[in-house]
């Protein structure tokens, strides 16, 4: 089922959590709402779920206006950040809950409920733990039970609030691949909230980057990463070096003072050389080298005293044989330019 969010605004007291937000989510897509805390992403998710009601704007499910419908009537599956499993019920009872509370006419029979729960337990690979209580499960298992519970009612839309936020790094990585696979199997329109750009870029079909109650950019992971629409998006999607600079006649130059234009360059898109090559460049002194990991991370100080981060492959690093306090040339392979609003 497709979701349309039209000009939605929501305030908490004086704080505008959502400011005239519009977003379209086609049927069957997996969309990430990505942003820092306080950007309004969770509020937007809760508005879609019917757990919060907007002051202005409307929400449509498949061209049907459901803005005034309660969470109960929207048929959404909601997975809470801290799972919100019913602590006094077993895993089985948790998953069966949504079927058990249906009005008598729509309620499946006991054996149908049992079959459905078994099927979901198989999907989340926890068949053997049906009689455990939530307190007896690990974080990753709880997360999967929460997901199965939401899927049991066959929701038209699946909403996940920071689905991997409370898990440790390893489990997190496994679960997000699993979620992606699951989505490819079940094909239910899904929206998940995250503050982790890797998670959003890896899992989602499309990413909506949010900041201060607004959507900054919507697009495929590739698109938002390589063609960020604003400095914020560029900044938020990865590490970045910021320079004052100017580009005239396709020639790029770096400056110490503000110029009206800001140059953004990712650490892996800066190159370190011993000789300048005629193009744009500046001098920098190497201050710290961290070669533990797939990439070597180098911290340097530019000739005007600003910190610069560069990443390079281990091979390149070994070829160059860089040492601390050495002065080198930094050459950008690719920069992104934005107007400096503070100056212009």
């Amino acid at each position: 089922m497709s979701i349309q969010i039209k000009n939605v605004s929501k305030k908490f007291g004086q704080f505008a959590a959502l400011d005239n937000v519009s977003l379209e989510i086609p049927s069957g897509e997996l969309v990430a709402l990505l942003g820092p805390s306080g950007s309004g992403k969770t509020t937007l998710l809760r508005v879609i779920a019917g757990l919060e009601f907007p002051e202005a704007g409307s929400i449509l499910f498949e061209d049907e206006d459901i803005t005034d419908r309660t969470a109960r009537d929207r048929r959404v599956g909601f997975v809470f950040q801290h799972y919100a499993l019913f602590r006094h019920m077993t895993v089985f009872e948790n998953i069966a809950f949504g079927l058990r509370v249906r009005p008598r006419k729509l309620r499946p029979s006991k054996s149908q409920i049992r079959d459905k729960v078994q099927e979901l337990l198989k999907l989340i690979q926890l068949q053997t733990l049906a009689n455990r209580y939530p307190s007896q499960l690990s974080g990753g298992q709880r997360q999967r039970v929460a997901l199965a519970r939401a899927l049991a009612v066959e929701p038209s839309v699946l909403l996940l609030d920071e689905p991997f936020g409370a898990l440790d790094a390893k489990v997190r990585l496994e679960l997000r691949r699993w979620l992606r696979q699951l989505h490819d199997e079940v094909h239910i329109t899904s929206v998940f909230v995250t503050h982790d750009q890797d998670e959003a870029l890896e899992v989602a079909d499309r990413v909506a980057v949010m900041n201060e109650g607004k959507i900054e950019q919507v697009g495929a992971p590739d698109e938002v990463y390589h063609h960020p629409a604003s400095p914020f998006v560029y900044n938020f999607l990865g590490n970045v070096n910021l320079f004052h600079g100017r580009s005239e006649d396709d020639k790029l130059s770096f400056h110490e003072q503000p110029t009206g234009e800001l140059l953004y360059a990712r650490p892996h898109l800066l190159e370190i050389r011993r000789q300048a090559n005629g193009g744009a460049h500046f001098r920098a002194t190497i201050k710290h080298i961290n070669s533990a990991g797939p990439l070597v991370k180098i911290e340097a100080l530019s000739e005007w005293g600003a910190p610069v981060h560069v990443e390079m492959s281990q091979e390149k690093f070994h070829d160059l044989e860089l040492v601390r306090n050495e002065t080198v040339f930094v050459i950008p392979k690719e920069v992104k330019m934005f107007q400096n609003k503070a100056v212009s």
Partner: protein
Amino acid sequence: MAGAATLTARGVFSTRSESTRAVTESPAVRWILTGVALLFLGVFIFMPLAVVFVEALRKGLSVYWDGLTQPDALSAIKLTLIAAGIAVPLNVIFGVAAAWAIGKFEFWGKSLLITLIDLPFSVSPVVSGLIYVLLFGLQGVFGPWLAEHDLQIIFAVPGIVLATIFVTFPFVARELIPLIQAQGQEEEEAALSLGASGWQTFWRVSLPNIKWGLIYGVILCNARAMGEFGAVSVVSGHIRGRTNTMPLHIEILYNEYSFAAAFAVASLLAFLALATLVVKRMVEWRASRQATQALGELA
């Protein structure tokens, strides 16, 4: 004290296995503290309790039994049960509703409501009783109207029930407010998003989550409802066989020098208190087991 000081110093500089010593006191201090606590308990709690049972049985079992089964005593027991039987369920409903509103919602006047819930704890019971006399007594605000319609509240059962409700209403609410506040709303939201109605959410999710706190509150509420003296004394009028509760009956018997009978009824109340403590302990034990489970859930 010198001994304690050196021990503390050694604890601080010692290896990890001994580090817990840093916070303990010397054996002498420990014995003195424990002894004082036990002595206090013995003098102020255990001795009076023992006296109640000894005095009640001093003249033999048959006198004890007579004291409990004379009509006035039976009527006092009955009235106490009626008052508690009405006050406790009403306060459960009120307590759950108030704790719910306070724990789950933001509204104007919330802190005022919290303060008002504590009022019966801070007001003298005699004043609590007097409020009802001033409201419903013959000279009271509603007195003439009540007299016209031939309704009697003060010096009758309704007054006793009202006073009991007033004095005991903080117990359930006070027990539940911190519990509900700590639990937050997520489980209820989950239930709603899964299609449960408000009523289903309450019975299947909210109530089981506050079960132990509620039982604990009910136990305390009941103990106080049966034992209340001051407020009930003011509104009761002490009409034997009609408006006397157990505590009031005990006072009358005692003032008439019927010590054996007074202590017999008192022993019943004391027994009730002991039973309450046992049940309370059991509930605490069950609840703490659930709490450790819940902690495991957070970890």
